[in-house]
């Protein structure tokens, strides 16, 4: 099978992509104004990190990297459950998801 | 085999399978109408063609020709995307289903499976889980409270039962030690029906859970709450008409077929002969190619029959009953099944 995919891509490209995703996530965290999208930006960051792990796993032939990603997914799922529950609680208490209006306590 | 050949062959397989699948969908609809008719002591469609066999074609034509209404309040991009997503996901998963015996075909080519993936089962689960979006987005983008409620119900239902569904398959995977569907089937091939996971594999509990979850996953009666006409005037596809409605319709039946395929592969021995080697094996290439296909289709067909039978028999659940059933009964049961299976495997 692998003969079909003979052309190779340097791993650094993957890493750059991962860095880009991570940075875009950070940017999203900073500019997004809705709690849910802010949270999504964090997920984007995690995905960027995951790509790094998988790439490095390939680099070192170390399956640990892939397992790490597996765990990150599980954690992300747990985080999503809790985070969205919190978001729902916020919405119930404040009837808004706008970051700028969650400001009872000034940051 | 060059890369070009590989491409062409793959394209051919995809085309054939898609056509067969769509035909299957169409005739499943007919099958259902006929069967439900019989169950209710009437004939069902019988005017178009002999025994109404051409009815699906007419239905299709009707869908195409109807006026395509897009209500003004909808969120257009997603409204248009949703049916495509739904149908697409329903069709894709067939791509990893092996529906015939392996190693038949020129060279390394596998004629009866589009792609043999090591994690085939996971692919099916993954694609199915994406399918939720079609329904969710449809309901949401319709900008209609019935649609939204239907979509919310549906996505909650799908997410909930997907867990039970996935867990019910773990026992099978434990037995096979692989996620490759071909491996799973081969493992049940030794003694015909006796070595099926359903019987010899002691996975009847899992099969039961799978069955229940499958009904819920495909929004079929008795779990067809998302489109409960009496409450939701049609649920998530209330605002859809013509071809787009047909796509949802086809997606539902496509999912049924996929689910039937998976049940066949995982519990009913896939394409293998239920009687094992009782009648000996033939060396004729045609026999070797077509008999498995026959068995496979037969098994899927029986599964579909079961679907319709249940629909014709059981009333609809209430929503909280549905959720309670999924979380409080099926899930723990599935987990127990996993524990029991692993213990059994460990101490066998």
């Amino acid at each position, binding site marked *: 099978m*692998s003969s079909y*995919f003979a*052309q*190779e*891509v*340097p*791993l*650094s490209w*993957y890493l750059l*992509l991962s*860095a880009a*995703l991570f*940075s*875009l996530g*950070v940017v999203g965290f*900073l500019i997004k*104004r*809705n709690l*849910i*999208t802010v949270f999504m*930006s964090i*997920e*984007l960051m995690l*995905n960027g990190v995951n*790509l790094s792990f*998988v*790439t490095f796993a*390939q680099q070192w032939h170390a*399956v640990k990297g*892939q*397992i790490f*990603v597996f765990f990150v*997914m*599980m*954690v*992300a*799922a*747990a*985080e999503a*459950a*809790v985070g*969205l*529950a919190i*978001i*729902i609680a916020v*919405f119930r208490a404040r009837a808004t*998801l706008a970051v*700028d209006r969650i400001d009872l306590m000034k940051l | 085999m060059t890369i070009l050949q590989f491409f062409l062959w793959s394209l051919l397989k995809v085309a054939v399978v898609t056509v067969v699948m769509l035909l299957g969908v169409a005739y499943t609809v007919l099958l259902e109408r006929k069967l439900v008719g019989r169950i209710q002591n009437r004939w069902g469609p019988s005017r178009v063609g002999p025994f109404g066999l051409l009815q699906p074609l007419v239905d299709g034509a009707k869908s195409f020709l109807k006026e395509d209404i897009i209500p003004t309040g909808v969120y257009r991009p997603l409204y248009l995307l949703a049916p495509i997503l739904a149908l697409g996901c329903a069709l894709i998963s067939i791509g990893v289903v092996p529906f015939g015996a392996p190693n038949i075909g020129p060279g390394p080519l596998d004629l009866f499976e589009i792609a043999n993936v090591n*994690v085939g089962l996971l692919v099916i689960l*993954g694609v199915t*889980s994406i399918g939720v*979006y079609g329904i*969710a987005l449809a309901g949401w983008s319709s900008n209609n409270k019935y649609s*939204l409620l239907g979509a*919310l119900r549906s996505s909650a239902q799908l*997410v909930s039962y*997907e867990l039970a569904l*996935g867990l019910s398959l773990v026992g099978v995977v434990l037995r096979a030690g692989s996620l490759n569907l071909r491996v799973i089937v081969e493992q049940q091939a030794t003694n015909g029906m006796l070595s099926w996971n359903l019987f010899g594999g002691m996975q009847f509990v899992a099969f039961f859970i799978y069955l229940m979850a499958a009904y819920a996953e495909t929004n079929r009666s008795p779990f067809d709450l998302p489109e409960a006409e009496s409450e939701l005037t049609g649920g998530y596809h209330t605002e859809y008409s013509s071809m787009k409605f047909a796509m949802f319709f086809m997606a539902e039946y496509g999912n049924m077929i996929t689910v039937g395929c998976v049940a066949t592969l995982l519990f009913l021995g896939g394409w293998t002969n239920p009687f094992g080697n009782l009648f000996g094996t033939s060396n004729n290439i045609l026999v070797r190619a077509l008999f498995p296909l026959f068995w496979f289709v037969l098994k899927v067909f029986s599964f579909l029959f079961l679907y319709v039978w249940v629909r014709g028999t059981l009333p609809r659940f209430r929503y*909280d009953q549905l959720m309670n059933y999924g*979380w409080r009964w099926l899930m723990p049961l599935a987990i127990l099944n996993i524990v029991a299976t692993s213990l059994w495997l460990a101490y066998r």
Partner: protein
Amino acid sequence: MHLILFLVFAGFCLGGAINLLIQSHPINSALSLIVVMVSLAVLYLLLGAEFLAAAQVIVYAGAIMVLFTFVVMLLNAGREARTMGSRAARSIGFPAVVAILAVIATVILHAQSLGVARLSDGLTNVPGQTNIELLSTVLFTKLLLPFEVTSVLILIAILGAVALARHDDTDPQGSAERTDK
């Protein structure tokens, strides 16, 4: 082939990520993120991590993002205001992001002996052993404790989600309905 696939799906990834930032409606952002995740799954496949590719689709796209869209739909939050963040975020955050990206990119580009990606049989050297077998072997021997501990994590998440999302004044009948949120 590998190159083309990489370029295509990397493009999807970046496009999705940027779209996530641009879109003002949460649901569009969520869909963009799903695009990113599914494209990443393909990239994982290219990197020989087939199990992860499947898990990515099932867990991320199929479960986590469903929850997201579900909540977006449930709360029907509407478009977000375009304030582009606070002044602090603009004046400190963006330079910081650029700096981080620049540093990491430089580091990566200067990193030595980075190999090339191959769709190998999942890092394994034993013939016939699949990626998933290798993965599970390591997972259940060397990394057993983290795996076991994850159950506590999941337990906490369930406990917490239920405690937070449940209406306090409803009857126990209705609670099951919300367990999945």
